[in-house]
């Protein structure tokens, strides 16, 4: 399954783009998406932390993804 992933802040710099397409070979979960992204973009692992948001909600690693979901990588926030 292929998903489109939005990137913000430093994640946009790491991806070199504000969104990337990712092919998920195994499980369609947030956790396997993170694993795929970390293999392709090792700098992701150097972040203090990062979260995945699915349809504008923070998602746990077990969340099942579908192709229609709006998926985003959320590096450590620093608003305010």
């Amino acid at each position: 399954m292929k998903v489109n992933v939005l990137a913000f802040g430093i994640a946009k710099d790491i991806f070199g783009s504000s969104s990337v397409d990712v092919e998920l070979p195994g499980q369609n979960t947030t956790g396997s998406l993170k694993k795929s992204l970390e293999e392709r973009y090792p700098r992701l692992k150097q972040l203090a932390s990062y979260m995945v948001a699915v349809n504008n909600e923070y998602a746990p690693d077990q969340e099942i993804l579908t192709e229609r979901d709006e998926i985003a990588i959320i590096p450590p926030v620093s608003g305010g």
Partner: protein
Amino acid sequence: MLTTQIEISDQPLNIQSCIDWVMSPQSGGIDVFIGTVRDSTKGKAVMRLEFEAYEPMALKEMQKIAERAFEKWPVQKLLIHHRTGILQVGEVPVIIAISCAHRQAAFEACLYVIDTLKQTVPIWKKEIFEDGEVWVAAHP
């Protein structure tokens, strides 16, 4: 009556109109937090800041914070305005204004909102120095 106003804007925030919006004949105290861009961080001169927001999610997370504040304190009106884009030193990235019948609740709710906003709302700040730039809090 609308009791919550949440906005993200790339235009300068208007402090007076934010305060006017939360005032009401029932409120006895208003607490307002105004963030401003500091000229330095950890002893290093800051030229300007750049704020980026994941807007639909940021609005949703701010709405959750507001709802939680209404549950925890007897808040009358609550406003959060956050700016995006390039901000110079002295400019205002965020305004939180809260009116309550009594002041203690207004203070507590306002501190809760800014503290939680900085933890959960998907907005990012890049500090631009003379010799480089850095996304705040990105790295350990």
